[in-house]
């Protein structure tokens, strides 16, 4: 999947008024915290803790909104809504989709980051 299909660089940058320095810091933060949120969601899922799954996915969703990453965002919302409804029957499947999409996003963001943010 190409970078543009994982997230919209232009749209995400526009959300921060083309402030490239801020956007770079956001990528750094997400590379650090995104995987942790995934781990927390996974742990809660393993423990059958629906509230914990909802919290972790809700937190992750806040970050995904900033990057205009529709597939990851959709997967995250599905898991959050299912967990809020107390339904973890499809939790593993929803989580797997989310993890896959977040990993794709992380790869795409790293590429952008490594290329440098200079205009």
């Amino acid at each position, binding site marked *: 999947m190409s970078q543009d299909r994982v997230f919209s660089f232009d749209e995400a940058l526009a959300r*921060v008024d083309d402030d490239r320095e801020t956007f770079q810091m956001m990528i750094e933060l997400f590379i650090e915290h995104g995987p942790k949120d995934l781990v927390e969601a996974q742990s809660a899922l393993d423990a059958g803790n629906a509230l914990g799954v909802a919290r972790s996915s*809700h*937190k992750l969703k806040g*970050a995904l909104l*900033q990057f205009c990453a529709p597939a990851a965002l959709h997967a995250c919302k599905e898991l959050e809504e299912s967990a809020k409804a107390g339904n973890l029957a499809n939790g593993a499947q929803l989580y797997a989709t989310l993890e896959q999409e977040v990993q794709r996003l992380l790869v795409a963001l790293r590429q952008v980051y490594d290329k440098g943010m200079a205009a």
Partner: protein
Amino acid sequence: MSFESSATAAGPAGSPPPHTVLVVDDEPTARLALVARLKRLGYRVIQAGDGKAGLEALRRERPELTILDWMMPEMDGPSFCEYVRQDPELQTSQILMMTSHDQPEQIAEGLARGADDFLSKAASKYEITARVQAGMRAATLVRRLKDATEEIRQKQEALEQELQSAARYVESLLPPSGTILPGVQMVHAYRPSLGLGGDLFNVVQWSEDVLGLYLLDASGHGVSPALRSASFVTFLRKDSLLRHVGSNDPGAILTEANKQFPLTESGHYFTIVFASLDLRCHTLSYATAGHGGALLHRRSGEVCWMVQPNLPLGFDPSTSYVTATLPIGPGDRLYLLSDGLYEFPAASGELWGRGRLEKTIQTLGQQPLKTVITETIAEAVRWQGHEQFPDDVALMGIEVAI
């Protein structure tokens, strides 16, 4: 997560300090994006990673606006709002709740628990800017209102102190209860309606055998009538009366007072009852001006009202006030009273009236004068159902033993 701070640069030299926004969100990427936007808008920004740290920051920094995530560890957004709204020191802070909860019932819950407005996490930068600016306008207005309220409270407090000081002065003009001449005892009660009354009474000692007694009532309530009454009391001092009137005759005194104290520009006036008690001749002379008069309660139990229908002082400078004279004997009691003691309603609207006052005094009969005064006031209070009279209340009782 502990509190983090990231203040922006201050505004240009000479400009007012920038408004402060507190951002409370446990998700660092979204928080960073919002903080950066707010800084670009010129605000000073502080931030916290959870509700508990946010509350500490709010208490310490008192930001105008708090932007708050709904779902957070330690303390969620709605709980944060409840804490803020219960704390009088923090109530002026505006709270903008960020949420993806856009169901009407969830928004209603947030508002009910103390949020002022909502902001979708997916909101555009234009909407974020508009909502923040609207919140800041509301915060500015609320704080101005709070400052104005505090200023009014301080001025009111200063005014109350002035009034209390004036009230102490007015009460210092009243005579002490006790024996005012050998064989003549006086007891009084004074209940100004606003802390500072326009009713005043006193005793003028003409000689070892003759006493002047008066009770005056300046129309209106508060500072102005109290000042006018104090001025009138000066006129009613013995040396002043001798100079202006040259007589202790009540009618002559009121006739002269009528000239000295015309209606004010705002139409205010005095009513008064003035009596002279002559122990040598055993007579009680009196004159009234627009006043409900005095009550003479004889030892025999008979009651008579001492009143003459005529104008209050100041209406017509040509008015002559006439003195009437009654015999008085040992054990007789004279009560000078203001109309505030009988012209007040019960909760039903029915006035207590002169009849009930007269009957109360008659029923109390020859009990000690102090008891009669105290119980008459107490009975009046029972009738109206509360302690605060709508008008000034003064009651002066004089008992003649010889």
